[in-house]
């Protein structure tokens, strides 16, 4: 909990006064060299992906993969991505947005309510409930995908939006995060003052609790949003109808055609993959602070 707070209030550690001389130069250059080489490993594939979106399908098979060659085909690739197969790609993006925004919004609200209740009310079985939530954090979503399919199949939720949306609305990690944050940042005195003023419990939650918990709720939303956006196995199992599929499932469907004959060419799959991550990269860069607070909450568990 201390980490959560310290990273929130002080994202970077204050620099210690420069009393001592900087470390010897050779080790500093060595560090820089090692980090540089490792960052090439992490960045080069993404660079390859970006460069490849500018190539025609045939140019992909010749020349240096890490540099531009042939005519600049980005615009025609984009055009093909968005019009291929009766313009199904934009539909996949919209489906993903629906699953990710809908699922993350509901799960954030539900987590806020549950986390607040666990932190701010004393009742019998509270610790048991919290321990179940903690255990559920460790249950990986993909392991649940087959069981969910088995359960949803007889009740006809398979191949519907709900088959993916309902499991996306639950986030034990969100409840965990909301609870530790509510315990740390919503003072009991404020709640008590609200009660003295005659405000109902729901009103106190909505006006005091939600507002004070909002930084943690952004983190919960972000993690759930990215989790749903990235999810593959569950929607792949649930949704046979490609009109309902999110972009991850659609993309792999295109890739599975292996670029043979009339199949979707590699250049289209590559460009479609690159386009699909743009919203995530934007969120990732603009909400970095919340990423770190969520991850450090994980590390103090």
């Amino acid at each position: 909990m201390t980490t959560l707070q310290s990273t929130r209030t002080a994202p970077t550690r204050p620099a210690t006064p420069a009393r001592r001389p900087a470390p010897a130069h050779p080790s500093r250059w060595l560090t820089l060299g090692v980090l540089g080489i490792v960052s090439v490993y992490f960045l080069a594939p993404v660079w390859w992906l970006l460069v490849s979106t500018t190539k025609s399908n045939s140019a992909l098979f010749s020349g240096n993969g890490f540099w531009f060659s042939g005519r600049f085909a980005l615009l025609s690739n984009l055009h093909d991505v968005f019009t291929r197969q009766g313009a199904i790609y934009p539909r996949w993006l919209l489906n993903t947005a629906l699953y990710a925004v809908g699922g993350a919004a509901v799960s954030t609200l539900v987590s806020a309510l549950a986390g607040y209740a666990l932190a701010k009310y004393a009742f019998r079985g509270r610790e048991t409930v919290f321990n179940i939530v903690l255990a559920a954090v460790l249950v990986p979503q993909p392991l649940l995908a087959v069981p969910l399919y088995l359960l949803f199949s007889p009740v006809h939720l398979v191949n519907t939006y709900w088959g993916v949306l309902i499991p996306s609305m639950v986030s034990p990690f969100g409840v965990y995060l909301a609870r530790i944050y509510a315990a740390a940042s919503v003072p009991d005195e404020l709640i008590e003052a609200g009660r003295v003023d005659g405000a109902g419990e729901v009103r106190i939650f909505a006006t005091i609790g939600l507002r004070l918990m909002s930084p943690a709720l952004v983190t919960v939303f972000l993690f759930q949003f990215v989790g749903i956006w990235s999810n593959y196995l569950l929607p792949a199992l649930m949704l046979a109808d490609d009109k309902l599929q999110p972009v991850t499932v659609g993309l792999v469907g295109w890739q599975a055609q292996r670029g043979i004959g009339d199949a979707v060419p590699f250049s289209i799959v590559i460009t479609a993959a690159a386009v699909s991550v743009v919203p995530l990269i934007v969120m990732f860069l603009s909400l970095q602070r919340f990423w770190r607070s969520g991850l450090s909450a994980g590390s103090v568990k």
Partner: protein
Amino acid sequence: MSTAATTHSTPTTHHARRRARTAAAFLLPFALLFAVAYLAPIGYTLYQSLFKMHRDGLGLSAPTKVFAGLGNYSDALHDPVFRSSLLRVLLIGVVQVPVMLGLALGLALLLDAKGTLFKRFFRLAFFLPYALPGVVGALMWSYLVAPGLSPITSAAHALGLHLDLTSGPMLAPTIGNMLTWGWTGYNMLIIYSALQAIPPELAEAARMDGCSALGIAWHVKIPIVRPALVLTTVFSIIGTAQLYNEPAVLQHVAPNLSSNYTPIFAAYNAVNDNNFGYAATESVILAALAFVLSFGFLKLVGRRGAAL
């Protein structure tokens, strides 16, 4: 952690009961969804795993469901295909998890060290793969290793080497690489956050005592971030158990990749064959193994790591 009812003096039983009701109401939406998305599928899967589909000899009438006790379990444990999928994932995990976590720890320590330049840039660069969905990362790597497309293969060719990263013996290293690429940054950030929480005075004091940078890392920093290392290891064990996306995507450029490559593959195939009981059994066995391995690891590292 103090709460309203315990810190404030003598709440009347009436108030206490009403607040308990409010708490229950606040918990209700989560409880309902949790029941539908966690408890029910787990319970139903356990139940399903006890039944087999019985087909008559000619396959003319619809198959009937018959109680099989632990029959599916004994079938699955004797099924060479399922067993080799478990073994394969175990081997990948035994090699890949230590490599990835060693790299993550090393990078976190280098980023945390005093005087490292461009920290912000490196942190972003290492974390970028985690921002991509696993499937998109896998798709990208599948093309980076696909014969014909792969810039790696063509570079090796230019050096006079024959390298096919999608050939049988190279599949496991290729998948291990995809996992390492995708998850090192995430683990690094967890460890790095724990390192950042160490008071700077501690390292400073060790430095005053003549401890080298390496010595500080080994004697001061690593012991303190031990809980983060334990946590990332448990997460990685669980993550490896559910290995699916990477081989599933790689399969489309590596046709010799078995369609029962990992246990989840096997369960997925059983679902497609409408053999739900068997799919349920395989899921239960996999979950049980993941559970045993993670808790076995926690026991192994002792209470000091598990307590946090």
